[in-house]
């Protein structure tokens, strides 16, 4: 039987691309609006285009915060993309005020520190130097992935960091802890390298 993959739909963000990518890879994808249905899926993707503030408010309002914590505890597989990754940390300052994240990882989401040579947002393909964990199987080191963001994760903890990328400074571009994975870049927008990461994730049993 085909695995069923849930894509969290909180109304903001380009979830259609993630949906198409999963279908393209041969899996059943379902856009899920109800946190109570989360255990129907062996793999959940938390996508994100949008602001940290808006997404943070919505995951709290609809009860995703608690259900995702339960889901993570169960050992089932979870993948956050872009703002979806940022939400997995303690808090974020986008939108002028500090809003709480889910808190799977230690760290904060703040704006890049700008100087004369640095344009914001950080947009385009940047290279990712990664450790060789299972999810990076068959992906060459330093492959380009698509980023579009002005806020990034600052963390003093090096625990669980799989890759860092440089844009004026080093920031966390991929993190994982057992069954939880997250990328600041968009794998669904990063040609074959990105699709391969998604495929490696969906293949986890």
């Amino acid at each position, binding site marked *: 039987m085909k695995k069923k993959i849930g894509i969290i739909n909180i109304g*903001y*963000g*380009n*979830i*259609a*691309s993630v949906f*198409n*990518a999963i*279908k*393209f*890879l041969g899996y059943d994808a379902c856009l899920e609006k109800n946190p109570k249905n989360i255990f129907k899926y062996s793999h959940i993707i938390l996508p994100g*285009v*949008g*602001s940290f503030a*808006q997404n943070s408010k919505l995951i709290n309002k609809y009860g995703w915060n608690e259900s995702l914590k339960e889901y993570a505890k169960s050992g089932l597989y979870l993948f956050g993309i872009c*703002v979806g990754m940022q939400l997995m940390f303690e808090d974020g300052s*986008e*939108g002028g005020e500090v809003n709480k994240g889910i808190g799977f990882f230690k760290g904060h989401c703040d704006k890049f520190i*700008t100087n*004369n040579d640095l*344009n*914001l*947002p*950080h*947009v*385009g*393909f*940047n*290279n990712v130097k990664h450790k060789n964990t299972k999810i990076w199987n*068959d*992906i*060459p080191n330093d*492959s*380009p992935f*698509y*980023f*579009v*963001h*002005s806020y990034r994760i600052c963390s003093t903890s090096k625990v669980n960091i799989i890759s860092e990328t*440089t*844009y004026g400074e080093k920031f966390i571009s991929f993190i994982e802890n057992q069954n939880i994975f997250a990328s600041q870049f*968009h794998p*669904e*927008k*990063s*040609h*074959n*390298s*990105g*699709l*391969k990461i998604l*495929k490696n994730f969906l293949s986890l049993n």
Partner: protein
Amino acid sequence: MLNKRIIFALLYCDGFFYLSRNFRLQKVGDIDWLINNFGFGDTCHFIDELVCILVKKKPTQEDKKKFLENIEKLRKKIFIPITIGGGISSIDDVENYFLNGADKILINSKIYDSELMFKTAELWGEQSISIMIDYQAINNNEDYNIFTESGTKSLMTLSNFKDNILPKIPYGELILNSIDKDGNGTGLDLEIMKNFNNKIKSPILLMGGAGKPEHILEGLKIKNVSGVLTANLFNFLGSGLEIARKKSIDNGISLANFEKSIRL
């Protein structure tokens, strides 16, 4: 390090894709032609992003729906960033474009609508807004007029826009599209960059006039240019974009090297 970008723009109206020359449109082919004859899927291995623009003047909701349906056919097999624009008249249109595959939306006529701009930034973030400025030189290139409404309406000059509008609106990147150079294939307007110093903190991209690979390289060589767009379906038919990409990399431009050999 962050790479520069080569971007392809598709111009759409009433079921067909178009070439544009000085903002006059010439019909080329429909979506099936684009996929089957143009080989669009292969082309996408050599571009960093795709921009899709509805170029119809005053499009109805039905026009926008058909436009999005056409993009949907492309999106199913293409996994690169897509910017969608043209015909945006309300925040509902913005939402609809995002729900139908836009990673960024392209704003031209609504740049003066600060309510729409700020609402979009609040909900989707500043990084999701690409501003496209259609401009034409005046007074022997001393200044430029900024146009909206498919190049038909001009409310201000570039210097006025830069001083009074740009610092006050949220956006993620700026696409400078030369009406004089549009579709003529004689090279990008590189001079325009003299008007943009380091005070502009967002990426700037050039469009209009790229007719051969060298033109793309010329644009990318400029330090403050983050990317180059072309909408020239004919000049970059077949291997044109692959050559442009290789030529740029060979000349020291930092561009992403997409690994095609990865097996899925």
